[in-house]
């Protein structure tokens, strides 16, 4: 910790920063983001690796993600979650609020008794040893140093494989990435597909093969199927907002082509996510214990198809530890499904 400061408000941010760095090395941290209620804005979930510039600028902006943890309910966490982890997560949540709290006042100031500090310090130092080789610069990460940038080339998203560490708790710490969103919208007017295919550069129409125009736009990179009834399907977006924006752009294209297109009943029909649990899985064992949910036919498909009942999601689980989740209408369903499957998969970690 830096030297004493007279103003308690000033001293606290450095503490936040220290805790933030500890949290950054602990892959428990992102476990919270998927478990929030949908109140949180969706585009918050992708933590951006902060560049060293921003960190040196303002130690409050360690994370660009603005996660509003004001309504975090931690009751879902499994019982085995140790006290220090609970505290750790609580601390992390508190200073996350701190980080994005431009508009928020510091009323959620973290009351930090020294015991919690000590526990957190110990906890993170045990993990930081494992991560030390990933942070060549951070030799002794237990010591907070405000100037040193977190070598957060360690983005806490699942698709960047990280050296696996025996997790101290049951929380997965992995966030499934959304890969595809399928949505539909009603343009509410009859369309002349031939005219659309003629006047639009990005359209293809082959009535013998399929009775719809296939239109593509570059930003957001998506594809749409436009039917003569005025219904449209938009696929390929990576987030709900992108899907909505893309659908609106397609509607604008159709409008510019001279049709009185509206934008009615936009609905997300399917969301696909994927992630990596980073250990190999005994699929034969999993199908034995969860026979009523699993279907594993190696003669047909190398993955195990797990049909989760609540939430109603289909998961494709592969021997390499990659998991694909599909069938969701809401982002939270994907996260919930993954948090449900993770402890089951961990049970099959060792051969």
């Amino acid at each position, binding site marked *: 910790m830096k030297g004493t400061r007279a103003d308690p408000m000033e001293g606290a941010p450095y503490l936040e920063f220290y805790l933030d760095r500890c949290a950054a090395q602990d892959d428990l941290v992102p476990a919270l983001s998927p478990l929030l209620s949908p109140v949180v804005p969706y585009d918050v979930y992708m933590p951006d690796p902060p560049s060293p510039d921003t960190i040196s600028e303002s130690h409050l902006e360690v994370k660009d993600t603005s996660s509003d943890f004001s309504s975090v309910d931690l009751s879902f966490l499994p019982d085995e979650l140790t006290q220090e982890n609970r505290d750790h997560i609580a601390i992390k949540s508190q200073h996350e609020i701190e980080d994005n709290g431009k508009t928020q006042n510091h009323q959620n100031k973290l009351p930090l008794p020294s015991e919690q500090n000590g526990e957190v310090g110990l906890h993170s130092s045990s993990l930081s040893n494992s991560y030390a080789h990933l942070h060549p610069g951070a030799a002794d990460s237990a010591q907070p140093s405000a100037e040193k940038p977190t070598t957060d080339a360690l983005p806490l998203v699942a698709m*960047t494989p990280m*050296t696996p560490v025996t997790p101290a708790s049951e929380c997965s710490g992995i966030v499934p990435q959304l890969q595809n969103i399928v949505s539909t919208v009603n343009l509410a007017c009859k369309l002349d597909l031939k005219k659309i295919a003629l006047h639009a550069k990005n359209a293809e129409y082959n009535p013998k093969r399929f009775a719809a125009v296939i239109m593509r736009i570059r930003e957001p990179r998506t594809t749409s199927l436009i039917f003569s009834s005025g219904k449209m399907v938009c696929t390929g977006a990576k987030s709900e907002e992108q899907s909505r924006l893309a659908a609106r752009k397609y509607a604008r294209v159709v409008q510019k*082509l001279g049709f009185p297109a509206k934008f009615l009943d936009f609905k997300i029909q399917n969301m696909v996510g994927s992630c990596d649990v980073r250990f190999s899985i005994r699929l034969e064992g999993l199908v034995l214990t969860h026979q009523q949910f699993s279907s594993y036919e190696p003669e047909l498909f190398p993955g195990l198809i797990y049909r989760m009942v609540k939430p109603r999601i289909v998961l494709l689980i592969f021997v390499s530890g990659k998991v694909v989740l599909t069938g969701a209408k809401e982002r939270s369903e994907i996260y919930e499904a993954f948090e449900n499957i993770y402890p089951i998969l961990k049970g099959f970690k060792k051969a």
Partner: protein
Amino acid sequence: MPGGGRCPDCGSAELVEDSHYSQSQLVCSDCGCVVTEGVLTTTFSEESNLREITYSRSTGENEQVSRSQQRGLRRVRDLCRVLQLPGTFEETAITYYQQAYRHSGIRTARLQKKEVLVGCCVLITCRQHNWPLTMGTICTLLYADLDVFSGAYMQIVKLLGLDVPSLCLTDLVKTYCSSFRLFRTSPSVPAKYVEDKDQMLSRTLQLVELASETWLVTGRHPLPVITAATFLAWQSLRPSDRLTCSLARFCKMANVDLPYPAASRLQELVAILLRMAGQLAWLQVLKLDKRSVVKHIGDLLQHRHLLLRMAFQDGSSEMETEKKEQQRQGQGRGEEEVGHSALDLSKGKRPASPALLLPPCMLKPPKRTCPTPPVSTVTGDENISDSEIEQYLRTPQEVRDFQRAQAASQAAQSVPNPP
């Protein structure tokens, strides 16, 4: 006959069964009017025999069961007979087919799907009785596409809510190995290639078990692994004569189809055996390669449990020691994408270091890195500029050009052979 019809002419109830030139008729005993000619028989054979037959062979079933369902049920029976399955299997398979037929989605399905459904019912029955039947076999017998078969199979399992156990590998090995034509001398099989069935079977089983423990079976089609294991077992029982025989020649000689992935499985299995051999003191000095290790398969299998434990370490304990090792060696490695690729690098310095026991797909380096997607701050309600939309529209000139080009290409198509 009493208690039946009435004569249409006189209304009398006295109808008698009489036969006129051996055609039985119902005749009214009062006025002599013939009420019916010919009585519907309930047997296919002549009525005089009056044999008792099962309901399924009688025409009584015809009234309740549609023709296509009857055809399907017949094919189920035929398939069971061809596969020489026990009698109880036939009844179970029939039941499944009938249950499936109650669903409208199956009744209205295409003929191709109904044909394939026959195979699905037989397969499910066999799986439930642990009878090792592969989908490949059924598809060959039905002349069906595996894709169509898999679609129908998944649908029917879900529809009927059935619990289908996994294919029993041990039984499959026994059945498959027995089909190899290597147990007797023949014109195509010289004496040095003939092998004792039991010895080969037991060794193959051990090799398959080894493969299954070392992640070579999970997620893969089981048959190529068994082919590779059979080949290795056969070779190892008389290596001096058989090392020169290739896998393809072996399968041809044994009159068994060589599945395409078998060669790759063979390489993987040999690699595992080589690593195990590295732990046996008297084999380390021999500096074995992938051909010479075959000679020692017997020894390796005898101590396979111990050797596996020594040769491989999986899980975090190994990772931890390796990571600490790397810290001491200097952290110039930077972050490796996967921990074990770092281990491979350190292995070069310390060749005796145990390798990771992982599925082959995890041991290969990833082909391309998965970049983290940038944080998207899209809200979905942004303004869409006109210029952005206009980039996707054709100018009137372009439209005219396009129409002209289309017309020209269509004209060219309609005149395929221009003079």
